[in-house]
């Protein structure tokens, strides 16, 4: 059977393609800021947005985008304040979001299966309008994530430097937060709100294993995300499995394959690194090696005065102090 003959499969593939490109693109910046779970938090908050849409009879995607963006900006504000209990504040926001969503969906008189289609995705039943919304929003996110990559990279790498370079750090931080919120909402129909963070983070973790540079990581993560998304939809077109879960599992399988390769590559890199200067050099990095030969090892009764020095003992030898360091002595 030719699956591409079915409109719903073509629509699903189109939505998967754009989601698979956009989610890792934004995910790269989240991982760079060590905020890998921010996508998950925004997903929780978006549940309330979906419920508001169902309750008021407007488009759930629209309300989800608005609520998720507000939540993401709020997370960014809490993060910027740098409070010690920032993670607790984030947790309050996350669980408030999901609890509010479940409550409102109950009030709207919707069944659990409606909620499920948002929590775990329902890409096979995506409507033509939803496909165009998905494609449009994802294209904007990809354009910004790739086009502004020098700015976004610098802001995430070193905020103080970015500020002195004249970049509007707050603008770019909020931009990443809003891009993440839009991506979460876009991926809501593909992988679902509970699994969206996986599509944002797992491809990045995979490409990190092999890439040495930021741009390579970004591009490879987008490639991995696209392959996983399209693969998941194709598999679930033949086999009766949930597409969202299949997409995430394919991405995880990619990570499982890449990880040992990454370990090997890093080991080879370390082997290729030149050895530290031998003790023959007098200046060995930041310490000075004692030049004279030692006929004996300094010890408790070698006749040299022992002086405690931090975590070790120095021995006074001809007016200077020797500290044991591996097979030789350092001047202290």
């Amino acid at each position, binding site marked *: 059977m030719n699956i591409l003959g079915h409109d719903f499969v073509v629509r699903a593939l189109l939505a998967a393609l754009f989601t698979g490109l956009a989610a890792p693109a934004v995910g*790269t910046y989240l*991982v760079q800021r*060590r905020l890998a779970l921010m996508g998950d938090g925004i997903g929780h908050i978006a549940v309330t947005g979906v419920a508001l849409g169902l309750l008021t009879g407007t488009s759930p995607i629209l309300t989800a985008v608005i609520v998720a963006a507000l939540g993401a900006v709020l997370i960014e504000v809490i993060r910027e304040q740098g409070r010690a209990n920032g993670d607790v504040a984030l947790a309050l926001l996350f669980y408030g979001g999901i609890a509010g969503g479940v409550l409102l969906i109950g009030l709207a008189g919707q069944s659990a299966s409606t909620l499920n289609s948002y929590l775990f995705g329902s890409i096979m039943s995506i409507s033509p309008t939803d496909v165009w919304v998905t494609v449009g929003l994802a294209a904007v996110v990809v354009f910004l994530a790739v086009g502004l990559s020098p700015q976004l990279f610098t802001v995430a*790498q070193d905020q*103080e430097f*970015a500020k*002195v*370079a*004249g970049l509007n750090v707050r603008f770019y931080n909020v931009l990443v937060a809003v891009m993440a919120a839009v991506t979460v909402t876009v991926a809501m129909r593909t992988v679902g709100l509970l699994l969206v963070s996986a599509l944002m983070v797992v491809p990045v973790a995979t490409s990190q294993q092999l890439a040495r540079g930021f741009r390579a990581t970004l591009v490879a993560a987008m490639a991995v995300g696209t392959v996983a998304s399209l693969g998941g939809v194709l598999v679930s077109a033949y086999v009766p499995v949930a597409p969202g879960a299949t997409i995430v599992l394919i991405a995880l399988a990619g990570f499982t394959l890449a990880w040992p390769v990454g370990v090997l590559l890093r080991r080879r890199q370390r082997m290729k690194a030149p050895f530290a200067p031998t003790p023959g050099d007098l200046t060995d990095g930041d310490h000075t090696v004692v030049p004279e030969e030692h006929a004996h090892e300094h010890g408790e009764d070698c006749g040299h005065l022992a002086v405690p020095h931090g975590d070790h003992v120095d021995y006074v030898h001809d007016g200077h102090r020797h500290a044991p360091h591996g097979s030789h002595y350092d001047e202290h």
Partner: protein
Amino acid sequence: MPVNDSSVVAEIRDGNVSLGGRPVLRGIDLTVRKGEVVALLGANGSGKSTLVRTLMGLVPVSRGGVSLFGTPLDRFRDWRRIGFVPQRVSATSGVPASVWEVVSSGRLSRRPALRPLRKADRTAIREAIAAVGLTERAQDGCSTLSGGQQQRALIARALAGEPDLFVLDEPTAGVDLQSQQAFADALGRLIEKGVTIVLVAHELGPMAELVDRTVVMRDGRIAYDGPPLASAQELDLHGFVDHGYHHPELQARQSDHTPTVASPVDVPTGREPRP
């Protein structure tokens, strides 16, 4: 002195800074002129780092004013003239980044958004990497570099912007001697080009001979501002280290710019001999 004096590169007048309600800088008056190489010295917590962060607009003043190149800080937009090396321990983040990519962010102040790198940008980045001796590592990930090499990459990032004022916050802290020398050589070439340098340092090391003005910070105030001091003893002679300690137990405390002069039998200060 008039603010519109074109030789004034950075100026802070009656600068007061509080962090979390605690005064950190008090009544700071500092004028840096074109071509000067100023070393900011002082013990930990004396406010030297806060002073450069205030000059860069990263910390707001509670009283007084800061201006860069004759423009008050809140109206200053010409950030391309400034190269800043913040105090930090590593150049890595959650995602791998190559040396070339980190250094290329130094061009952002000269690049419009959404435009590719121009030829001049690439040349400046390549030259900045060469100036700190990392050409062979340019495509390697920053996480594979040693601490000293990472610090050199951050310095190259500031160099890439071809700044007129170069501000470095403890650039050689924790950097091996070899890297310190490479770094001092790079600074020397900048000075020849007429770049103004403000340098926060714990120890000057190989950079000492480049400095032509020393500012010593003490408890949030400027304790000394003048020609470089040959030694801490000279600092004592000028009476800048006050001897009337209210806390006699602090008397033995070594200030960070005092070289350790002790007999080999002395137990290093601050450490109790083990029983």
